[in-house]
């Protein structure tokens, strides 16, 4: 186990370096940050000064080496636009994104699992067919459009919920969270639903497929023959076995949601990391882009590791071994 973890960490280090190099080259290829940031009526003296101030006067490879040198000391650079450490900017916005991502994951499990179970256990009922048809909608409707529709219906027409933004926050562990206040909850509901629609559909379909497959297994038949209650058969024997694909997919989806909930965050003006990264890309704020993507890579590595460890808990046959 220890060896396995060590090996994974070393692989991760390599991925991080490759990532930073790619992003550096990528931003360089897109355009010149100075042309975007500088006031159009600034003269050449001012332009030269800005280029030096942001360290863009060095050749690209030297810029990269400077970045690596500082990164090794834990400094991922300062944002060109905000003049604050990139990592600090990202961390400031992380709680908003995390609570949105976890909120949507919570909703997707809370809604998706029971519906999927029902559809799997009673596949021929009209309700099951309705659920499956609905899940196709959840897959195919664009998030952007659904978000706007949610706003138009629940905020503009009905006026039940606020249209955009993050509500009041309360401190927990010194970090402001909005799910702890009523106002905050009313703000998070619409974006969380919007973000969870796709995942609800995914969980429904995975659960249903798993249930249908497992119900035909010998051990389920045996359990029923033994006279166990349907409740126990469903929630102990079947449930545990369908969870592996669900956990894998939800885990990866969680990573994706944290990293790239850009569309929902901008439609709902949610002050999270997704908005930060899209704004940063628009102005080629390289330190923030690099720091953000490196952090996301790190997060995926950790999530994958957590998923692997969860497997061993769910399925005793799985062992984590150094040979991968």
């Amino acid at each position: 186990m220890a060896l396995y973890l060590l090996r994974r960490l070393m692989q991760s280090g390599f991925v991080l370096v490759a990532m930073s190099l790619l992003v550096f080259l990528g931003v360089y290829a897109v355009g010149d940050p100075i042309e975007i940031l500088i006031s159009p009526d600034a003269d050449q003296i001012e332009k030269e000064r800005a280029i030096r101030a942001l360290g863009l006067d060095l050749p690209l490879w030297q810029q990269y080496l400077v970045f690596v040198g500082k990164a090794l000391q834990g400094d991922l650079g300062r944002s060109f636009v905000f003049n604050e450490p990139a990592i600090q900017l990202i961390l400031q916005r992380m709680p908003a994104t995390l609570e949105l991502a976890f909120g949507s994951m919570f909703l997707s499990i809370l809604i998706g699992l029971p519906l999927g179970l029902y559809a799997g256990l009673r596949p021929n009922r009209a309700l099951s067919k309705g659920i499956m048809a609905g899940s196709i909608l959840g897959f195919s409707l664009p998030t952007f459009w659904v978000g706007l529709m949610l706003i138009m219906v629940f905020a503009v027409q009905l006026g039940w919920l606020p249209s955009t933004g993050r509500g009041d926050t309360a401190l927990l562990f010194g970090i402001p969270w909005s799910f702890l206040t009523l106002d905050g909850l009313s703000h998070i509901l619409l974006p969380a639903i919007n973000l969870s629609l796709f995942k609800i559909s995914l969980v429904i379909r995975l659960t249903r497929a798993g249930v249908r497959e497992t119900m035909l297994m010998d051990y389920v038949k045996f359990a029923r023959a033994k006279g166990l209650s349907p409740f126990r058969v469903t929630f102990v024997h079947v449930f545990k076995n369908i969870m592996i694909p669900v956990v894998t997919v939800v885990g990866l989806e969680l990573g994706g949601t944290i990293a790239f909930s850009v569309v929902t965050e901008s439609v709902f003006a949610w002050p999270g990391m997704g908005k930060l990264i899209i704004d940063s890309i628009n102005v080629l704020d390289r330190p923030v882009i690099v720091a953000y993507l490196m952090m996301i890579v790190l997060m995926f590595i950790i999530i994958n590791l957590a998923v692997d460890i969860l497997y061993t808990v769910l399925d005793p046959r799985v062992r984590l071994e150094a040979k991968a």
Partner: protein
Amino acid sequence: MRLVLAAFGLALSLAGAQAQTLTMAVGAPVTSLDPHFHQLSPNNAAAGMIFGKLVEDDANGVLRPGLALSWSAVAPDTWEFRLRPGVRFHNGNAFTADDVAFTFARIPQVPNSPSSFAGFVRPIIRIEVVDPLTIRFITNGPYPLLPMDLSNLYILDRETHANATTEQFNSGAMAIGTGPFRLVRHANGDRIELERNDGYHGEAPAFARVVYRMITNDSARMAALLAGDVDVIDQVPTADLARLRSDARVSLSEIMGLRIIFLGLDHGRTDASPFITDNEGRPIARNPLKDVRVRRALSMAIDRNAITSRVMEGSATPAGQYLPPGTFAYVPDLAAQPHDPEGARRLLAEAGFPQGFRITLHGPNDRYPNDSRIIQAIGQMWTRVGIRTTVEAQTWSTFIGRAARAEFSSFLVGWGNNPDGSHPLRNLIACPSPERGWGNSNRGRYCNEALDQGLMAAMRELDNGARAAQLIALQRLALEDLAIIPLHNQTNIWASRRGFTVTPRVDELSMAQSVRPAAGR
């Protein structure tokens, strides 16, 4: 009559009582509260609520006394400013001439600034504090634009802000000015919360509290207004204009803005221009755009009224020159080029291109309202007179770098003017010259030495009448020569809920002091 007035007054005070808090949403994010860190419109708007300037510019861009009561050139190279007595910063410190000297010394020193305000203080070679309420700026030769330049600079306090860092401004600790509002809270990229500064020397703001939110997505900003979550929004999407005009819950405040949308042309190459070929796709040995008849034909082929009325939904005015009416050195009798496809074809034939040629028109697709649709429309109009046009729109971050390197043959871009005729000439039209500091946004590399000489004289002319006459003549020269092709001036539009009224500004800045409770209801 008296009864009506009394009822009117009552309604006013009621509206005032209801509307103690103003929530407004803006489309462009404020990135820093350090007023000298990044010269950027959204940052300037935020600074304009918290800090004060020696010279203020009103909604129409006209200079007004701010922290300075009056100013005059006491010698050809010396401007004297008399300061407003009794002004205090939000923390109670008194404002004096020494704070101005401190501020101007800080401006070029802000670390890591991606676009500083240093250019505005560079003409000043020496500052003399005559007494606490009088200050003199000695400039490098006569410099008529100093008062206008100073209307960009926010004044800080020496005692408070010595060694203040950009981060301290952003966190709110150092966001202390003389402006109409004081900072309550700043959540970077999300919102700024302000409260009224009761000690403000100018007209008191109408609202005790302001929540200034940043909602960059157009549809979300619009929805927030319709849902009643915010009272005022800026940058109203043109697609929504028709619906909003007929919506009784919403009113629009509009003004013709200082921003000009224009086409830049490749003047730099006399031989082949990179995106121009003949009709068979072979390069043309000489650059057709060097011929003024071709440039005029391109301008005549454009139906500006169609663009402003249909593509822009009426939120733009066809432009015949760089600045809108009411600015300094506006050319009085110069209307927009009328649509004349026949004339365009004739000129092309005269210039030796009876069959036209092929060109690629470049432009951004995420910068100006409807930018990519405008170049598509122009592409069709040019094609109709025989210049077969390919249109290529790309994201701003890619586009602007290529435009700055003069990679294009023709391109659409915008320019946010200062309300002075010299501003577009110096930046867009003058020969690119590091020594003079001109032509920095001259992406077509137009260069006319006679024009530059005239501009140099105008920039030393302290007599406003003479300077205006010189600048009008120079603008005529550049417009006759079609250095760039003006298309339209954008209209700046704010939308507000019933009960609020916005004084629209020509410079696009969205500030809480521009909003008042609507009279009546």
